[in-house]
């Protein structure tokens, strides 16, 4: 079979034909199998060994016609658990590659076969789900009503190349990491709001003429908690991966602009606060640059609140 396929390459159309390496590994299943049931796993890869995601793998029991299908993940792997022992026909379909069909492979309850296949790429297939997939679809009708005919247009008819239709797992991983970090950023920001409000509220008893040391200590402690949480929040935003080629548009621009106010403010406020704290403890009236602690803190808290609202409420 390999010779036959590679023979096609020699007679192929240069520039249009490229080759796919499809490695179907029926490795022993790592998942516990039920007694008497077999499993079938494998990996779909292209010629360079890169995983092919979103390939549809369909197994059909030669014994009873039962069909099951699966889609490969970002690492190109698929898995069928709980397959009754017997002979199966295997079909692999992926956009931009020719369909691979393995006429017969045997699944046993206790052992599995290993089959390596190489396949020539070709015209993109119509992205039709298999019959088994159809049955598992939401809103799936009892019969396939939109099945493609020989004349049905394909993605290539629309000028969409296989490369454009092919997924980019690396970019997806980048987006996943970005979203994960920004989710933490969002939650931390919400948590930070609580001590921030408490700090502002306790400032009334901390800075007036008739204030106690206990009030100032409470205000200072809350301010310190706010600062710590704030910088943890900022860390997750700053370290979240950037997506190349993305222009910042919409409310997120305002959200980011506010960071240029509350960021320096969150550094300056505690410095001024410490100065004011020391002056107060020395029995002095807060004076000089330390007297800016309150106004700077208010501006900082205001910018923080505005940043939060800008991405929370639609204006």
């Amino acid at each position: 079979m390999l010779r036959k396929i590679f023979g096609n390459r020699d007679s192929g159309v240069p520039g249009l034909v490229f080759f796919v390496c499809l490695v179907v590994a029926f490795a022993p299943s790592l998942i516990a199998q039920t007694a008497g049931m077999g499993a079938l796993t494998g990996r779909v890869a292209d010629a360079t060994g890169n995983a092919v995601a979103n390939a549809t793998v369909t197994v059909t029991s030669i014994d009873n016609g039962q069909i099951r299908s699966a889609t490969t993940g970002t690492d190109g792997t698929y898995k069928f658990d709980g397959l009754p022992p017997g002979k199966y026909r295997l079909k692999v379909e992926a956009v931009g590659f020719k369909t691979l069909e393995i006429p017969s492979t045997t699944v046993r309850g206790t052992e599995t076969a290993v089959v390596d296949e190489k396949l020539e790429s070709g015209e993109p297939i119509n992205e039709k789900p298999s019959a088994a997939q159809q049955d598992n679809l939401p809103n799936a009708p009892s019969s396939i009503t939109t099945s493609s005919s020989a004349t049905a247009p394909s993605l290539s008819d629309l000028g969409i190349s296989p490369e454009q239709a092919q997924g980019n797992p690396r970019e997806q991983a980048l987006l996943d990491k970005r979203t994960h970090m920004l989710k933490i950023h969002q939650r931390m920001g919400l948590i930070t709001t609580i001590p921030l409000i408490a700090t502002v509220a306790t400032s009334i008893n901390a800075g007036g003429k008739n204030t106690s040391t206990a009030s100032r200590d409470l205000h200072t402690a809350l301010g310190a908690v706010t600062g710590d949480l704030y910088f943890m929040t900022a860390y997750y935003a700053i370290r979240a991966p950037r997506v190349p080629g993305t222009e910042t548009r919409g409310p997120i621009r305002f959200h980011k602009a506010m960071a240029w106010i509350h960021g320096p403010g969150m550094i300056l406020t505690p410095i001024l606060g410490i100065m004011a704290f020391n002056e107060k403890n020395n029995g002095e009236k807060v004076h000089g640059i330390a007297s800016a602690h309150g106004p700077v803190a208010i501006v900082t808290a205001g910018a923080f609140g505005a940043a939060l609202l800008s991405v929370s409420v639609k204006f």
Partner: protein
Amino acid sequence: MNKKILIAFVLLALPAFGGSDSQWVLEQSSLTYHVSHPLHESEGVSHAARGKGVCHAGECDFLIAVAVKSFDSGDSNRDLHMVQVTRGAEFPIVTVRTRLPESAATSATVNADLEIQFAGQTAQYKQVPFKLETQGSKTHITGTIPATLSDFKIDPPSLLTIRVKNEMPVRVDMTWHPQ
């Protein structure tokens, strides 16, 4: 001589008996998804869909494809989250397939069975109503696909720990012309 004329006539007449194929091309389109959140009502629009219909023997097979990244909600951060949550980098193209009778082009309404591939999943929507309006040789189609996030196994994104609603209707506004 008469025999040659007869053969020529038969050969010329054959295509008429075989039925001629025709094609439709998507000229312009707006696809708009709508997402609801207690604090937000967001919409993302794409004008980048491509489509083609091939008619044969009284039936037309249509394919519409649009890049996930082409949807614009007016906020780049939200768009990136949308691409992430719908696995748009892994599955960059949304496809919609349907088969309609050729005679539907002259109707005022049509109910279409749609097969949509999105986010690595396929969902079918039966008898989705669309309005048709013929303007010269062009046909203007409008309607709403009652899509939901769960149809495509999309984990509903959340804002301030509140999740968006499952419903994600997609408004369709397309102009087709025969090729």
